[in-house]
Protein backbone atom coordinates (compact mmCIF):
# COMPACT_ATOMS: atom_id res chain seq x y z
CA UNK A 1 0.00 0.00 0.00
CA UNK A 2 1.32 3.45 -0.78
CA UNK A 3 0.56 7.01 0.31
CA UNK A 4 -1.79 7.55 -2.63
CA UNK A 5 -4.16 4.81 -1.61
CA UNK A 6 -7.74 6.21 -1.33
CA UNK A 7 -7.95 5.15 2.32
CA UNK A 8 -4.76 7.04 3.15
CA UNK A 9 -5.92 10.11 1.27
CA UNK A 10 -9.21 9.93 3.15
CA UNK A 11 -7.31 9.72 6.43
CA UNK A 12 -5.20 12.74 5.58
CA UNK A 13 -8.22 14.80 4.55
CA UNK A 14 -10.08 13.85 7.75
CA UNK A 15 -7.01 14.73 9.83
CA UNK A 16 -6.71 18.08 8.09
CA UNK A 17 -10.38 18.77 8.70
CA UNK A 18 -9.85 18.09 12.39
CA UNK A 19 -6.77 20.35 12.39
CA UNK A 20 -8.73 23.08 10.64
CA UNK A 21 -11.43 22.89 13.32
CA UNK A 22 -8.88 23.07 16.12
CA UNK A 23 -7.21 26.10 14.57
CA UNK A 24 -10.49 27.82 13.79
CA UNK A 25 -11.91 27.55 17.29
CA UNK A 26 -9.58 26.31 20.02
CA UNK A 27 -6.50 28.21 18.91
CA UNK A 28 -8.67 31.26 18.32
CA UNK A 29 -9.96 31.02 21.89
CA UNK A 30 -6.46 30.82 23.28
CA UNK A 31 -5.31 33.81 21.25
CA UNK A 32 -8.46 35.91 21.61
CA UNK A 33 -7.45 37.08 25.08
CA UNK A 34 -4.41 38.89 23.64
CA UNK A 35 -6.59 40.76 21.21
CA UNK A 36 -9.18 41.50 23.89
CA UNK A 37 -6.64 43.28 26.05
CA UNK A 38 -5.30 45.19 23.06
CA UNK A 39 -1.81 43.66 23.23
CA UNK A 40 -1.90 42.55 19.61
CA UNK A 41 -3.96 43.29 16.54
CA UNK A 42 -5.75 40.44 14.79
CA UNK A 43 -3.19 40.36 11.98
CA UNK A 44 -0.30 40.24 14.45
CA UNK A 45 -2.03 37.47 16.42
CA UNK A 46 -2.40 35.34 13.31
CA UNK A 47 1.28 35.76 12.45
CA UNK A 48 2.44 35.04 16.02
CA UNK A 49 0.07 32.12 16.42
CA UNK A 50 0.97 30.73 13.01
CA UNK A 51 4.64 30.66 13.83
CA UNK A 52 4.51 29.38 17.40
CA UNK A 53 1.62 26.97 16.96
CA UNK A 54 3.60 25.41 14.15
CA UNK A 55 6.76 25.29 16.25
CA UNK A 56 4.91 23.74 19.19
CA UNK A 57 3.31 21.11 17.00
CA UNK A 58 6.48 20.16 15.11
CA UNK A 59 9.00 20.23 17.94
CA UNK A 60 6.97 19.39 21.02
CA UNK A 61 3.86 17.60 19.78
CA UNK A 62 5.08 14.04 19.40
CA UNK A 63 4.56 12.82 22.96
CA UNK A 64 0.85 13.57 23.11
CA UNK A 65 0.46 12.34 19.54
CA UNK A 66 1.80 8.95 20.45
CA UNK A 67 -0.50 8.83 23.49
CA UNK A 68 -3.54 9.42 21.27
CA UNK A 69 -2.20 7.01 18.64
CA UNK A 70 -1.12 4.10 20.77
CA UNK A 71 -1.53 4.97 24.44
CA UNK A 72 -5.21 4.14 24.81
CA UNK A 73 -5.85 1.28 22.42
CA UNK A 74 -3.17 -1.40 21.81
CA UNK A 75 -2.89 -0.52 18.13
CA UNK A 76 0.21 -2.68 17.61
CA UNK A 77 -1.52 -5.89 18.70
CA UNK A 78 -4.48 -5.14 16.46
CA UNK A 79 -2.31 -4.42 13.45
CA UNK A 80 -0.50 -7.71 13.97
CA UNK A 81 -3.85 -9.40 13.33
CA UNK A 82 -5.11 -7.06 10.63
CA UNK A 83 -3.49 -3.74 9.87
CA UNK A 84 -6.38 -2.72 7.62
CA UNK A 85 -8.65 -2.75 10.69
CA UNK A 86 -6.48 -0.15 12.37
CA UNK A 87 -6.59 2.18 9.38
CA UNK A 88 -10.38 1.91 9.08
CA UNK A 89 -10.84 2.20 12.86
CA UNK A 90 -8.75 5.33 13.07
CA UNK A 91 -10.54 6.83 10.08
CA UNK A 92 -13.81 6.13 11.90
CA UNK A 93 -12.39 7.79 15.02
CA UNK A 94 -11.36 11.00 13.21
CA UNK A 95 -14.67 11.14 11.36
CA UNK A 96 -16.65 10.61 14.57
CA UNK A 97 -14.70 13.25 16.49
CA UNK A 98 -14.88 15.65 13.54
CA UNK A 99 -18.62 15.10 13.23
CA UNK A 100 -19.24 15.69 16.94
CA UNK A 101 -17.05 18.80 16.97
CA UNK A 102 -18.83 20.20 13.91
CA UNK A 103 -22.22 19.60 15.50
CA UNK A 104 -21.18 21.08 18.84
CA UNK A 105 -19.67 24.13 17.16
CA UNK A 106 -22.87 24.78 15.23
CA UNK A 107 -24.71 24.79 18.55
CA UNK A 108 -21.96 26.88 20.22
CA UNK A 109 -21.30 24.21 22.87
CA UNK A 110 -17.94 24.35 24.70
CA UNK A 111 -16.95 20.82 23.62
CA UNK A 112 -13.27 19.90 23.59
CA UNK A 113 -11.59 18.38 20.53
CA UNK A 114 -9.30 16.48 22.91
CA UNK A 115 -12.21 14.83 24.69
CA UNK A 116 -13.84 14.00 21.37
CA UNK A 117 -10.80 12.30 19.87
CA UNK A 118 -10.03 10.37 23.07
CA UNK A 119 -13.65 9.20 23.19
CA UNK A 120 -13.57 8.29 19.50
CA UNK A 121 -10.33 6.30 19.77
CA UNK A 122 -11.74 4.52 22.81
CA UNK A 123 -14.84 3.71 20.75
CA UNK A 124 -12.67 1.91 18.21
CA UNK A 125 -10.93 0.03 21.01
CA UNK A 126 -14.27 -1.06 22.46
CA UNK A 127 -15.65 -2.31 19.14
CA UNK A 128 -12.40 -4.18 18.55
CA UNK A 129 -12.80 -5.80 21.96
CA UNK A 130 -16.46 -6.52 21.24
CA UNK A 131 -15.46 -8.33 18.06
CA UNK A 132 -12.91 -10.35 19.99
CA UNK A 133 -9.88 -8.87 18.22
CA UNK A 134 -8.44 -7.77 21.54
CA UNK A 135 -9.51 -8.43 25.11
CA UNK A 136 -11.37 -5.70 26.97
CA UNK A 137 -8.54 -5.68 29.51
CA UNK A 138 -6.04 -5.01 26.69
CA UNK A 139 -7.31 -1.45 26.47
CA UNK A 140 -4.95 0.69 28.53
CA UNK A 141 -7.48 1.69 31.15
CA UNK A 142 -4.82 3.05 33.46
CA UNK A 143 -3.71 5.51 30.74
CA UNK A 144 -7.33 6.45 30.10
CA UNK A 145 -7.82 7.05 33.80
CA UNK A 146 -4.74 9.28 33.86
CA UNK A 147 -6.03 11.22 30.86
CA UNK A 148 -9.51 11.70 32.29
CA UNK A 149 -8.20 12.79 35.67
CA UNK A 150 -5.89 15.26 33.94
CA UNK A 151 -9.00 16.81 32.44
CA UNK A 152 -10.23 17.53 35.94
CA UNK A 153 -6.85 18.54 37.28
CA UNK A 154 -5.73 20.84 34.44
CA UNK A 155 -8.41 23.55 34.85
CA UNK A 156 -7.91 23.47 38.63
CA UNK A 157 -4.16 23.73 38.16
CA UNK A 158 -4.73 26.63 35.74
CA UNK A 159 -6.92 28.34 38.33
CA UNK A 160 -4.37 27.91 41.12
CA UNK A 161 -1.45 29.09 39.00
CA UNK A 162 -3.34 32.09 37.60
CA UNK A 163 -4.48 32.96 41.14
CA UNK A 164 -0.91 32.90 42.39
CA UNK A 165 0.51 34.85 39.43
CA UNK A 166 -2.12 37.54 39.57
CA UNK A 167 -1.86 37.81 43.37
CA UNK A 168 1.89 38.35 43.03
CA UNK A 169 1.41 41.02 40.37
CA UNK A 170 -1.23 42.60 42.54
CA UNK A 171 0.81 42.54 45.72
CA UNK A 172 4.17 43.55 44.31
CA UNK A 173 3.19 45.84 41.46
CA UNK A 174 -0.42 47.02 41.31
CA UNK A 175 -0.68 47.88 45.00
CA UNK A 176 2.54 49.83 45.00
CA UNK A 177 1.81 52.13 42.12
CA UNK A 178 0.08 55.46 41.80
CA UNK A 179 -1.01 54.81 38.29
CA UNK A 180 -2.27 51.29 37.57
CA UNK A 181 -2.94 52.23 33.94
CA UNK A 182 0.78 52.73 33.37
CA UNK A 183 1.46 49.23 34.67
CA UNK A 184 -1.10 47.84 32.25
CA UNK A 185 0.82 49.49 29.40
CA UNK A 186 4.01 47.79 30.52
CA UNK A 187 2.29 44.43 30.59
CA UNK A 188 1.27 44.79 26.96
CA UNK A 189 4.74 43.76 25.79
CA UNK A 190 4.86 40.91 28.30
CA UNK A 191 1.56 39.73 26.98
CA UNK A 192 2.99 39.47 23.49
CA UNK A 193 5.44 36.97 24.97
CA UNK A 194 2.65 34.98 26.64
CA UNK A 195 0.70 35.00 23.38
CA UNK A 196 3.68 33.22 21.76
CA UNK A 197 3.92 30.89 24.75
CA UNK A 198 0.25 29.93 24.66
CA UNK A 199 0.36 29.34 20.89
CA UNK A 200 3.37 27.08 21.36
CA UNK A 201 1.67 25.23 24.21
CA UNK A 202 -1.51 24.79 22.24
CA UNK A 203 0.36 23.47 19.22
CA UNK A 204 2.29 21.00 21.35
CA UNK A 205 -0.83 19.47 22.88
CA UNK A 206 -3.66 19.84 20.39
CA UNK A 207 -1.86 18.79 17.22
CA UNK A 208 -2.23 15.25 18.50
CA UNK A 209 -6.02 15.47 18.16
CA UNK A 210 -5.61 15.88 14.42
CA UNK A 211 -2.62 13.70 13.61
CA UNK A 212 -2.64 11.06 16.39
CA UNK A 213 -5.06 8.72 14.62
CA UNK A 214 -3.46 9.51 11.26
CA UNK A 215 -0.06 8.45 12.54
CA UNK A 216 -1.50 5.30 14.11
CA UNK A 217 -2.96 4.16 10.80
CA UNK A 218 0.07 5.06 8.69
CA UNK A 219 2.25 3.21 11.18
CA UNK A 220 -0.03 0.17 11.10
CA UNK A 221 0.05 0.21 7.30
CA UNK A 222 3.86 0.25 7.49
CA UNK A 223 3.97 3.53 5.60
CA UNK A 224 5.83 5.28 8.40
CA UNK A 225 8.19 3.97 11.02
CA UNK A 226 8.14 3.85 14.80
CA UNK A 227 9.23 7.44 15.25
CA UNK A 228 6.65 9.97 14.11
CA UNK A 229 7.89 11.59 10.89
CA UNK A 230 8.16 15.37 10.89
CA UNK A 231 5.93 15.76 7.84
CA UNK A 232 2.95 14.45 9.80
CA UNK A 233 3.47 17.05 12.51
CA UNK A 234 3.97 19.72 9.83
CA UNK A 235 0.70 18.65 8.25
CA UNK A 236 -1.11 19.07 11.57
CA UNK A 237 0.56 22.41 12.24
CA UNK A 238 -0.33 23.69 8.77
CA UNK A 239 -3.93 22.56 9.13
CA UNK A 240 -4.34 24.40 12.43
CA UNK A 241 -2.73 27.61 11.18
CA UNK A 242 -4.91 27.40 8.08
CA UNK A 243 -7.98 27.07 10.31
CA UNK A 244 -6.95 30.13 12.27
CA UNK A 245 -6.31 32.19 9.16
CA UNK A 246 -9.50 31.20 7.32
CA UNK A 247 -12.03 31.16 10.17
CA UNK A 248 -10.29 31.66 13.51
CA UNK A 249 -9.82 35.37 12.92
CA UNK A 250 -13.60 35.78 13.05
CA UNK A 251 -13.77 33.89 16.33
CA UNK A 252 -10.96 36.08 17.66
CA UNK A 253 -12.82 39.20 16.54
CA UNK A 254 -15.96 38.08 18.34
CA UNK A 255 -14.07 37.21 21.51
CA UNK A 256 -11.68 40.15 21.41
CA UNK A 257 -14.35 42.81 21.20
CA UNK A 258 -16.26 41.33 24.11
CA UNK A 259 -13.42 40.60 26.52
CA UNK A 260 -12.46 44.13 27.35
CA UNK A 261 -12.38 43.28 31.06
CA UNK A 262 -9.24 41.24 30.61
CA UNK A 263 -6.62 43.98 30.85
CA UNK A 264 -2.96 43.12 30.11
CA UNK A 265 -2.07 42.16 33.72
CA UNK A 266 -5.09 39.86 33.91
CA UNK A 267 -4.57 38.52 30.41
CA UNK A 268 -0.92 37.85 31.15
CA UNK A 269 -1.77 35.92 34.33
CA UNK A 270 -4.42 33.78 32.66
CA UNK A 271 -2.34 33.06 29.56
CA UNK A 272 0.88 32.32 31.38
CA UNK A 273 -0.92 29.92 33.72
CA UNK A 274 -2.75 28.20 30.88
CA UNK A 275 0.32 27.84 28.68
CA UNK A 276 2.40 26.47 31.57
CA UNK A 277 -0.21 23.88 32.50
CA UNK A 278 -0.62 22.82 28.87
CA UNK A 279 3.13 22.56 28.21
CA UNK A 280 3.50 20.52 31.40
CA UNK A 281 0.86 18.09 30.15
CA UNK A 282 2.49 17.92 26.72
CA UNK A 283 5.71 17.04 28.51
CA UNK A 284 4.09 14.20 30.45
CA UNK A 285 2.29 13.05 27.28
CA UNK A 286 -1.26 13.80 28.43
CA UNK A 287 -3.81 15.28 26.02
CA UNK A 288 -5.86 18.03 27.71
CA UNK A 289 -8.18 20.79 26.62
CA UNK A 290 -6.44 24.16 26.31
CA UNK A 291 -9.77 25.95 26.23
CA UNK A 292 -10.98 24.38 29.48
CA UNK A 293 -7.66 25.13 31.14
CA UNK A 294 -8.04 28.74 30.03
CA UNK A 295 -11.48 28.86 31.64
CA UNK A 296 -9.91 27.61 34.88
CA UNK A 297 -7.21 30.26 34.67
CA UNK A 298 -9.70 33.05 34.08
CA UNK A 299 -11.64 31.88 37.13
CA UNK A 300 -8.37 31.91 39.08
CA UNK A 301 -7.78 35.56 38.15
CA UNK A 302 -11.39 36.28 39.15
CA UNK A 303 -10.91 34.56 42.52
CA UNK A 304 -7.87 36.75 43.14
CA UNK A 305 -10.15 39.77 42.70
CA UNK A 306 -8.83 40.69 39.27
CA UNK A 307 -12.03 40.66 37.26
CA UNK A 308 -15.17 42.77 37.50
CA UNK A 309 -17.53 39.88 36.79
CA UNK A 310 -17.05 36.19 36.06
CA UNK A 311 -19.94 33.94 35.11
CA UNK A 312 -19.39 30.59 36.81
CA UNK A 313 -22.32 28.95 35.05
CA UNK A 314 -19.79 28.04 32.34
CA UNK A 315 -18.38 25.41 34.72
CA UNK A 316 -21.64 23.51 34.61
CA UNK A 317 -21.73 23.62 30.82
CA UNK A 318 -18.17 22.37 30.59
CA UNK A 319 -18.81 19.56 33.08
CA UNK A 320 -21.83 18.52 31.05
CA UNK A 321 -19.80 18.57 27.83
CA UNK A 322 -17.26 16.24 29.45
CA UNK A 323 -19.90 13.76 30.48
CA UNK A 324 -21.61 13.79 27.10
CA UNK A 325 -18.64 14.00 24.73
CA UNK A 326 -16.71 10.83 25.59
CA UNK A 327 -19.63 8.36 25.33
CA UNK A 328 -21.14 10.08 22.28
CA UNK A 329 -17.80 10.20 20.44
CA UNK A 330 -17.10 6.56 21.39
CA UNK A 331 -20.48 5.36 20.19
CA UNK A 332 -20.35 7.36 16.95
CA UNK A 333 -16.85 6.06 16.28
CA UNK A 334 -17.92 2.45 16.83
CA UNK A 335 -20.93 2.90 14.55
CA UNK A 336 -18.78 4.56 11.87
CA UNK A 337 -16.36 1.65 12.09
CA UNK A 338 -19.15 -0.87 11.55
CA UNK A 339 -20.48 1.27 8.71
CA UNK A 340 -17.11 1.64 6.99
CA UNK A 341 -16.42 -2.09 7.30
CA UNK A 342 -19.97 -2.76 6.03
CA UNK A 343 -19.46 -0.82 2.80
CA UNK A 344 -16.22 -2.68 2.29
CA UNK A 345 -13.62 0.05 2.86
Amino acid sequence: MDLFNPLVIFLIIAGLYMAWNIGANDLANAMGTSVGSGALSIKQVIIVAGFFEFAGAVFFGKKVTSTIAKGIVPIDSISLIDNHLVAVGMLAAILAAGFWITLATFYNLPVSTTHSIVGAVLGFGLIAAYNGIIGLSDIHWEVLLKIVSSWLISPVLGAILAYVIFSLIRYFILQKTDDPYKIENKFVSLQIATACYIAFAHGSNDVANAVGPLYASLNALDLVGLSIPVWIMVLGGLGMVFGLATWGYRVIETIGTKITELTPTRGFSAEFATASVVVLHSYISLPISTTHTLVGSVIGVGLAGGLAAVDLSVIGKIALSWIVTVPVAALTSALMFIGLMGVGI
Partner: protein
Amino acid sequence: MKKEYIRSVLSIFASSPFKPLCMHANKGGDCVRKLSEAVHAFCEGDMEKVNLLNAEIDVIEHEADVIKQTIRGELSSSIMLPVHATDLLNFLKPQDSISDDAQEASYWLTLRRFDASPEIRAGFRELMARTLATVEHYEKLVDTLSELLESSFSKRDVEDTLALVMEVEEMEHQVDVIEKELMRTVFRSEDVLGGVGVFHLSRLVMNIGSIADKAEHAADRLRTMILRR
Protein backbone atom coordinates in the same frame (compact mmCIF):
# COMPACT_ATOMS: atom_id res chain seq x y z
CA MET B 1 -27.69 36.24 18.62
CA LYS B 2 -27.10 34.72 15.23
CA LYS B 3 -25.65 31.25 15.45
CA GLU B 4 -22.08 31.30 14.22
CA TYR B 5 -19.66 28.45 13.76
CA ILE B 6 -18.03 29.22 17.10
CA ARG B 7 -17.09 27.32 20.23
CA SER B 8 -15.83 29.77 22.78
CA VAL B 9 -15.28 30.50 26.43
CA LEU B 10 -16.68 33.97 25.93
CA SER B 11 -19.55 33.39 28.34
CA ILE B 12 -17.12 33.14 31.26
CA PHE B 13 -16.82 36.92 31.04
CA ALA B 14 -20.02 38.39 32.44
CA SER B 15 -20.77 42.04 31.88
CA SER B 16 -19.34 44.20 34.64
CA PRO B 17 -21.93 45.86 36.89
CA PHE B 18 -19.47 48.59 37.85
CA LYS B 19 -19.64 50.71 34.70
CA PRO B 20 -23.45 50.82 34.78
CA LEU B 21 -23.17 51.61 38.50
CA CYS B 22 -21.17 54.75 37.68
CA MET B 23 -23.61 55.65 34.93
CA HIS B 24 -26.45 55.20 37.39
CA ALA B 25 -24.76 57.50 39.93
CA ASN B 26 -24.34 60.12 37.19
CA LYS B 27 -28.02 59.90 36.31
CA GLY B 28 -28.76 60.71 39.95
CA GLY B 29 -26.33 63.63 39.70
CA ASP B 30 -28.04 64.82 36.50
CA CYS B 31 -31.42 64.76 38.27
CA VAL B 32 -30.08 66.86 41.15
CA ARG B 33 -28.38 69.33 38.75
CA LYS B 34 -31.72 69.79 36.96
CA LEU B 35 -33.43 70.11 40.33
CA SER B 36 -30.99 72.85 41.29
CA GLU B 37 -31.94 74.76 38.14
CA ALA B 38 -35.59 74.18 38.98
CA VAL B 39 -35.17 75.51 42.53
CA HIS B 40 -33.57 78.67 41.16
CA ALA B 41 -36.39 79.11 38.64
CA PHE B 42 -38.87 78.45 41.45
CA CYS B 43 -37.31 81.16 43.60
CA GLU B 44 -37.57 83.57 40.66
CA GLY B 45 -41.20 82.63 40.12
CA ASP B 46 -40.56 81.11 36.67
CA MET B 47 -43.09 78.26 36.94
CA GLU B 48 -42.93 77.51 33.25
CA LYS B 49 -39.28 76.59 33.58
CA VAL B 50 -40.02 74.60 36.76
CA ASN B 51 -42.55 72.50 34.85
CA LEU B 52 -40.20 72.03 31.95
CA LEU B 53 -37.37 70.86 34.20
CA ASN B 54 -39.75 68.60 36.09
CA ALA B 55 -40.52 66.80 32.83
CA GLU B 56 -36.80 66.45 32.08
CA ILE B 57 -36.13 65.04 35.55
CA ASP B 58 -38.91 62.47 35.02
CA VAL B 59 -37.11 61.26 31.91
CA ILE B 60 -33.69 61.03 33.59
CA GLU B 61 -35.16 59.27 36.63
CA HIS B 62 -36.69 56.69 34.34
CA GLU B 63 -33.34 56.16 32.62
CA ALA B 64 -31.76 55.61 36.03
CA ASP B 65 -34.45 53.02 36.81
CA VAL B 66 -33.70 51.16 33.60
CA ILE B 67 -29.98 51.02 34.44
CA LYS B 68 -30.81 49.80 37.95
CA GLN B 69 -33.03 47.05 36.57
CA THR B 70 -30.32 46.00 34.12
CA ILE B 71 -27.74 45.73 36.91
CA ARG B 72 -30.09 43.67 39.05
CA GLY B 73 -31.16 41.53 36.13
CA GLU B 74 -27.59 40.59 35.22
CA LEU B 75 -26.50 39.66 38.73
CA SER B 76 -27.56 36.02 38.71
CA SER B 77 -26.22 33.73 41.43
CA SER B 78 -23.53 32.30 39.14
CA ILE B 79 -21.81 35.67 38.75
CA MET B 80 -18.62 36.08 40.75
CA LEU B 81 -17.66 39.67 41.63
CA PRO B 82 -14.69 41.07 43.55
CA VAL B 83 -17.23 42.29 46.15
CA HIS B 84 -20.29 40.62 47.68
CA ALA B 85 -23.24 40.90 45.32
CA THR B 86 -25.61 41.61 48.23
CA ASP B 87 -23.43 44.53 49.33
CA LEU B 88 -23.48 45.86 45.80
CA LEU B 89 -27.27 45.66 45.66
CA ASN B 90 -27.56 47.25 49.12
CA PHE B 91 -25.54 50.17 47.86
CA LEU B 92 -27.45 50.46 44.60
CA LYS B 93 -30.73 50.95 46.46
CA PRO B 94 -29.96 54.25 48.27
CA GLN B 95 -28.10 55.44 45.17
CA ASP B 96 -31.30 54.93 43.23
CA SER B 97 -33.21 56.94 45.85
CA ILE B 98 -31.14 60.01 44.92
CA SER B 99 -32.96 60.35 41.61
CA ASP B 100 -36.25 59.25 43.18
CA ASP B 101 -36.05 61.98 45.82
CA ALA B 102 -34.95 64.60 43.29
CA GLN B 103 -37.99 63.67 41.22
CA GLU B 104 -40.24 63.98 44.27
CA ALA B 105 -38.81 67.40 45.20
CA SER B 106 -39.15 68.61 41.62
CA TYR B 107 -42.78 67.48 41.59
CA TRP B 108 -43.45 69.43 44.77
CA LEU B 109 -41.97 72.53 43.15
CA THR B 110 -44.63 72.40 40.43
CA LEU B 111 -47.54 72.24 42.88
CA ARG B 112 -47.52 75.79 44.20
CA ARG B 113 -45.96 79.15 43.38
CA PHE B 114 -43.20 80.48 45.57
CA ASP B 115 -44.16 83.51 47.61
CA ALA B 116 -41.83 84.10 50.53
CA SER B 117 -39.27 86.40 52.04
CA PRO B 118 -35.80 86.93 50.52
CA GLU B 119 -34.43 85.21 53.64
CA ILE B 120 -36.24 81.95 52.87
CA ARG B 121 -35.36 82.30 49.22
CA ALA B 122 -31.67 82.59 50.11
CA GLY B 123 -32.11 79.63 52.48
CA PHE B 124 -33.47 77.45 49.68
CA ARG B 125 -30.67 78.46 47.35
CA GLU B 126 -28.10 77.54 49.91
CA LEU B 127 -29.76 74.27 50.88
CA MET B 128 -29.90 73.33 47.21
CA ALA B 129 -26.30 74.37 46.54
CA ARG B 130 -25.00 72.30 49.47
CA THR B 131 -27.11 69.33 48.51
CA LEU B 132 -25.86 69.49 44.94
CA ALA B 133 -22.27 69.76 46.17
CA THR B 134 -22.80 66.66 48.35
CA VAL B 135 -24.23 64.67 45.45
CA GLU B 136 -21.46 65.78 43.09
CA HIS B 137 -18.87 64.76 45.65
CA TYR B 138 -20.66 61.44 45.89
CA GLU B 139 -20.38 61.05 42.09
CA LYS B 140 -16.64 61.57 42.43
CA LEU B 141 -16.59 58.85 45.07
CA VAL B 142 -18.37 56.34 42.83
CA ASP B 143 -15.98 57.26 40.02
CA THR B 144 -13.06 55.95 42.10
CA LEU B 145 -14.54 52.44 41.80
CA SER B 146 -13.04 52.01 38.33
CA GLU B 147 -9.57 52.80 39.65
CA LEU B 148 -10.14 50.47 42.60
CA LEU B 149 -10.96 47.65 40.20
CA GLU B 150 -8.00 48.49 38.01
CA SER B 151 -5.52 48.25 40.88
CA SER B 152 -7.52 45.34 42.31
CA PHE B 153 -8.29 47.28 45.52
CA SER B 154 -4.83 48.49 46.38
CA LYS B 155 -4.46 49.79 49.92
CA ARG B 156 -3.77 53.31 48.75
CA ASP B 157 -6.81 53.46 46.48
CA VAL B 158 -9.02 52.01 49.20
CA GLU B 159 -7.80 54.72 51.57
CA ASP B 160 -8.49 57.42 48.97
CA THR B 161 -12.01 56.11 48.48
CA LEU B 162 -12.68 55.85 52.21
CA ALA B 163 -11.49 59.46 52.64
CA LEU B 164 -14.07 60.54 50.06
CA VAL B 165 -16.77 58.65 51.97
CA MET B 166 -15.90 60.66 55.09
CA GLU B 167 -16.06 63.90 53.12
CA VAL B 168 -19.50 63.06 51.75
CA GLU B 169 -20.64 62.31 55.29
CA GLU B 170 -19.29 65.63 56.52
CA MET B 171 -20.98 67.52 53.69
CA GLU B 172 -24.27 65.81 54.43
CA HIS B 173 -23.96 66.90 58.04
CA GLN B 174 -23.64 70.51 56.90
CA VAL B 175 -26.77 70.09 54.77
CA ASP B 176 -28.58 68.82 57.89
CA VAL B 177 -27.64 71.96 59.80
CA ILE B 178 -28.88 74.25 57.04
CA GLU B 179 -32.00 72.15 56.61
CA LYS B 180 -32.96 72.51 60.28
CA GLU B 181 -32.29 76.25 60.23
CA LEU B 182 -34.36 76.75 57.09
CA MET B 183 -37.21 74.67 58.48
CA ARG B 184 -37.29 76.87 61.58
CA THR B 185 -37.37 80.01 59.40
CA VAL B 186 -40.23 78.59 57.32
CA PHE B 187 -42.33 77.86 60.42
CA ARG B 188 -41.54 81.30 61.85
CA SER B 189 -43.02 82.87 58.70
CA GLU B 190 -46.45 81.27 59.16
CA ASP B 191 -48.14 84.70 59.22
CA VAL B 192 -46.83 85.59 55.78
CA LEU B 193 -46.91 82.15 54.16
CA GLY B 194 -50.15 80.82 55.56
CA GLY B 195 -50.68 77.22 56.67
CA VAL B 196 -50.62 75.74 53.15
CA GLY B 197 -47.51 77.76 52.30
CA VAL B 198 -45.70 76.45 55.37
CA PHE B 199 -46.79 72.91 54.58
CA HIS B 200 -45.60 73.19 50.97
CA LEU B 201 -42.22 74.72 51.78
CA SER B 202 -41.56 72.42 54.75
CA ARG B 203 -42.15 69.39 52.53
CA LEU B 204 -39.75 70.91 50.00
CA VAL B 205 -37.09 71.43 52.64
CA MET B 206 -37.44 67.82 53.75
CA ASN B 207 -37.37 66.49 50.18
CA ILE B 208 -34.26 68.39 49.20
CA GLY B 209 -32.54 67.52 52.47
CA SER B 210 -33.31 63.83 52.03
CA ILE B 211 -31.40 63.79 48.73
CA ALA B 212 -28.18 64.48 50.62
CA ASP B 213 -29.23 61.85 53.18
CA LYS B 214 -29.47 59.27 50.41
CA ALA B 215 -26.06 60.21 49.01
CA GLU B 216 -24.59 59.80 52.49
CA HIS B 217 -26.42 56.51 52.98
CA ALA B 218 -25.16 55.20 49.65
CA ALA B 219 -21.61 56.33 50.46
CA ASP B 220 -21.85 54.44 53.76
CA ARG B 221 -23.01 51.29 51.97
CA LEU B 222 -20.23 51.68 49.43
CA ARG B 223 -17.73 51.70 52.29
CA THR B 224 -19.26 48.50 53.65
CA MET B 225 -19.04 46.93 50.20
CA ILE B 226 -15.34 47.78 49.90
CA LEU B 227 -14.37 46.78 53.42
CA ARG B 228 -16.32 43.52 53.54
CA ARG B 229 -14.82 42.18 50.33
